[in-house]
């Protein structure tokens, strides 16, 4: 679910929490494990972008190639995951 949420464009912790319904205290450790297993990677946003928008910089997560492969395998096994958490563009179009 977390991989699908990140893939769907919910690239930071709180957004993943909101989308998956998982509580704080679950999402961040899970994301650390995914990062440790090299399924996702994280990167801090440039401070200048955040400063321009008067907000603190975010830490964004992205799927790695291995993460995408794992997500594809999971989607084949559980097609409902993709429907539960659609990509951000699909939501806007819908």
């Amino acid at each position, binding site marked *: 679910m977390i991989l699908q949420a990140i893939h769907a464009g919910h690239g*930071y*912790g*709180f*957004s993943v929490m909101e989308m998956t319904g998982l*509580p*704080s*205290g*679950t999402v*961040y*450790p899970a994301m*650390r*494990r995914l990062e*440790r*297993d090299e399924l996702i990677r994280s990167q*801090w946003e440039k401070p200048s972008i955040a400063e321009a928008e008067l*907000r*603190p*910089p*975010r*830490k964004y997560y992205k799927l790695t190639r291995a993460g995408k492969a794992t997500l594809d395998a*999971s989607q084949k*096994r*559980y097609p409902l995951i993709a429907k539960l958490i659609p990509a951000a563009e699909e939501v806007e179009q819908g």
Partner: protein
Amino acid sequence: MNERLHLALLRGAALLVRAPEREEWLAEWRAELWYVGRTQRTSFCLGAFRDAYWLRRNGPAPVYLQSPWHCLALLATLAALSLCLAFQLPLPRDILLSPQLPTGLVSITGIPLEDYRQLPVATSRSAFYGPVRFREGNLNVALASRNLFDLLNVSLAPVANPLVLINGDARLIGSSLSVAGRAAQVAATLSNRAWQLPGSANAWLLVDDQTLATESLGYVVAQMNPSTTNISVPHSNSSVARFICVPLAAPKLLVAFLVMMMAVTLVLPAVTTMSLGEYPGRHARRWIFLAAKSALVLVIVLFGSLDLFSLIALHLEAHAMIVGSVIGLRWVLIDQRRRCPVCLRVLTNPTTIGEPSRTLLEWYGTELICTKGHGLLHVPEMRNSYSEQRWLRLDSSWSGLF
């Protein structure tokens, strides 16, 4: 105000995270908090504690615990410190060094002096002491038979009119005091803990049995068969007075420790699995290490509890010992399970293998590796009777990789 509280919560959680990762986690939590809705902020901050707990539990062991020798050295240092502190602090020192009551002593409470004189016990093997008789300044003085402290195995300075002070300064021994108009010399000082009999006074004036005089009921200490439950004293008017004899069991630290260990043995399986996993071959060092670690942890808990609760003046040592032993031995078992059975170093590089959905068909769990190349440890995600953590030994042909 709420913002400060939330920030304080996040900072508190960050303290639980290891120093190298602390700033990174705090920055991420703070950044995320900005986006969290007002009503969800407190639960988000409390969730940070769960994050920190997870990090502690799943992160690498601290450097000083990774090597078995460093681990034992640290535990030995803590044990020595708690032991030294116990002999420095008054309360633990009293418990450790208080004179043990001799076996076969019984106590009789609420006995008149006249009945004590009629007891069918030799006067050399029994002693009478009364309630507080005089007050001299801060001293509540009671009269007692001259041999009372001999029966209790307390040695007295050889003085003519001995006075024993409870909680008195040992430097007072030999000094003279005036008690109810008569001169007395301090023959010994005892701590509160060392006085283990019923009745209380903070000074005992020792006199011959003939000069003992009190109209109040007193106490008797006698050396007799500990199975004696009561004793009868015939009166001149053909009535008989019966007194209950209470054995004065010598409180033995070893017995208390064994009782504590029994309680811990019952509780421990409820808080952690007792299995140490499947390790082919004999690893005697592993068991010696486990025994040494357990012994040191118990010493730390025993004396640490005594030290801590004597400092904060609460009589909760026994509770602290049981809880501390359970927590300590739980840590010993968890630590033992994550060590290489050959070199006893903490295993590293945890990697998740398999998927939760394949639990029933395939193996799913975490693999850890010994950095010295001794082998791999497979820890199942869901422990059960048929799926224990297993050690896979790597032979010397793998040594080139490490």
